[in-house]
């Protein structure tokens, strides 16, 4: 009995060997990523003849990065545990629609925010039930809920637009700034730091890595695997709802296609941020940098007036390259 208890504790409270390695490796990867981000900034800044530094471009870039990075926190946990969620684009649509309908009824903004967050959390809860309790494959479940939420959005909107979004959201997330940084980005950094602390230091966070490294072992050791999965998918849902509110602040309009394709941005940010798709490795700080990098590139596509159709090709290629790099890195580590 005793060794088991000790083993559980060592996973629960203190980083075990594997996790220490993870930490060391990700710091290196994050440094590389930071250098790449800086390089891309320099290239775009020079190539765009200074348009990059315009206040409006910087603001929209940082808000875009925030919108991607907030759900990326939850997506990091989900992918670290070997899961995936492709439904979040539709969840953005669903939560934005619920918010829009509530705004139409002149609900007070605090209540609307609560309702939106609750909607996102419930969408996450439904995914979690199928995935954690019924043990169904995450890709199948979320592919299904992706199309279902999109249909619900369509049914709720009935082909109309909602444009009665109060200016307060735009003020909160886009216009009001801390020096030159929009508050939405500040909020994102705070959320990322909290999540980084939870994942690195708190038992629940350590469980995420333990499940990702070896779910069976984690379960045998008595870790609450089901509860941790619920935590990850539900927080992803709620964080997606925050992203939806930020989206409404940026462009105050809800339509049937709001949020479609958004899941790729977030998955790309997480994978480019160094999270291993084989599970067990990844940090939210990496994902934040990944979000900044992907948004920088789509910003560059606009500034350089390149065909926007390149976006999908570039993002797809970047995912593949990032995964190959992380696989090589992992295989290299295994040989050491």
């Amino acid at each position: 009995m005793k060794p088991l208890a000790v083993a559980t504790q060592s996973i629960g409270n203190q980083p075990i060997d594997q996790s220490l390695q993870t930490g060391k490796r990700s710091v290196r990867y994050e440094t590389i990523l930071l250098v790449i981000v800086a390089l891309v900034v320099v290239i775009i800044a020079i190539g765009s003849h200074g348009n990059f530094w315009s206040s409006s471009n910087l603001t929209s870039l940082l808000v875009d990065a925030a919108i991607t990075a907030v759900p990326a926190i939850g997506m990091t946990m989900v992918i670290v545990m070997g899961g995936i969620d492709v439904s979040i684009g539709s969840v953005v649509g669903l939560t934005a629609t619920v918010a829009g309908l509530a705004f139409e009824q002149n609900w007070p903004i605090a209540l609307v925010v609560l309702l939106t967050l609750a909607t996102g959390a419930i969408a996450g809860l439904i995914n979690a039930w199928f995935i954690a309790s019924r043990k169904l494959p995450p890709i199948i479940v979320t592919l299904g809920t992706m199309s279902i939420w999109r249909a619900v959005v369509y049914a709720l909107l009935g082909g109309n637009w909602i444009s009665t979004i109060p200016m307060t959201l735009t003020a909160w997330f886009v216009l009001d700034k801390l020096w030159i940084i929009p508050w939405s980005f500040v909020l994102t950094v705070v959320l990322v730091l909290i999540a980084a602390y939870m994942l690195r230091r708190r038992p629940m966070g350590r469980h995420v890595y333990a499940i990702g490294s070896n779910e069976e072992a984690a379960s045998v050791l008595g870790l609450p695997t089901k509860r941790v999965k619920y935590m990850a998918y539900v927080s992803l849902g709620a964080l997606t709802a925050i992203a939806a509110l930020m989206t409404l602040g940026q462009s105050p309009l809800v339509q049937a296609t709001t949020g479609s394709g958004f899941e790729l941005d977030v998955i790309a940010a997480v994978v480019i941020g160094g999270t291993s798709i084989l599970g067990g490795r990844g940090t939210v700080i990496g994902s934040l940098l990944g979000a900044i990098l992907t948004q920088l590139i789509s910003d560059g596509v606009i500034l350089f007036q390149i065909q926007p159709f390149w976006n999908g090709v570039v993002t797809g290629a970047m995912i593949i390259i990032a995964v190959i790099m992380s696989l090589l890195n992992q295989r290299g580590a295994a040989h050491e």
Partner: protein
Amino acid sequence: MSRGEGVFRKIGENYGVLILVLVFTVIGSNILQPGILSLQNVSSMITFGVEIGLIALGETLVILGGGGGIDLSVGSMYAVSQVVVGLLAQRNVNILLAVAAGLATGVAMGFVNGLLVTRVKIPAIITTLATMYAFSGVALLLTDGIDVSAFPASYSFIGQGLIGGLPAQFVLLYIPAALLLWIVLSKTVYGQQLYLTGTNQLAAVLSGINVKQVRMWTYVITGFLTAVAGVVDSSRLVTARPDAGATANLAAITIAVLGGTSIFGGKGSVWGTAIATLVITLVSYSFSLANINSVIETGTIGGVLIVVILFQGYLARWFARGGRVSVKA
């Protein structure tokens, strides 16, 4: 046990969910659209079903191969291959050559998927999610996002012609493809290797099967079948659409799973997929006859996917017990 009971059990285990769903769909579609099963409707339904049916056959092989195999990029490959045919036809290339180039493009894209999954060892979900966006971007780039419609008149035969009163694409393409794949899966060494690879990868490796190559072929075949479907689509509409097939992956996966393909690999059949194609086509067709928006239709298919996969486990066990309610043991 009598022979009849054995057959019942065998069919029940393999196709139980499917037959139930088929019955419900036939009843449901008749309520939604009375008289939907008229001869003329059935004929147009077959016309619609061929494209997704071909794609679903490929998807079945990929999922059957196990190891987390899945292909989310089918819709994009479907768009790219038809766009290639359309652009070449627009430049007055011989239409047979253009079609051959379109099919080769499909094979090449399937090869890229297979290479990344089996050799570079990137999980299929991520590989095909990335190539789904990349290929779709390629289709849009090639055409600037505009439909291409410059086919010679003869081209429309594949998608609009009739042979013996039946749609040409059904007789000339779907039936031969399904028969060929049925023979490959049930009568050839490759078929046995694929089932074993899907059931137990380690056992397959130990018995000397080149698992990588076996799985590689499933992606290449899917690329090819998807390109054939793309040709049929562009021929039926006499237009190549760069944004075609946006929801084809969901429909193809739903059909495969509904047809009894185990998402964990090793189980699945051509006949199951063929019957499931009928079900999904019936749903799509009755929805479009009833003027229900395609977003709602896609949502319904997503719901079917989740419900089927949820109940597949329960029903398989129920039929395995010979259809009796078990005393809790």
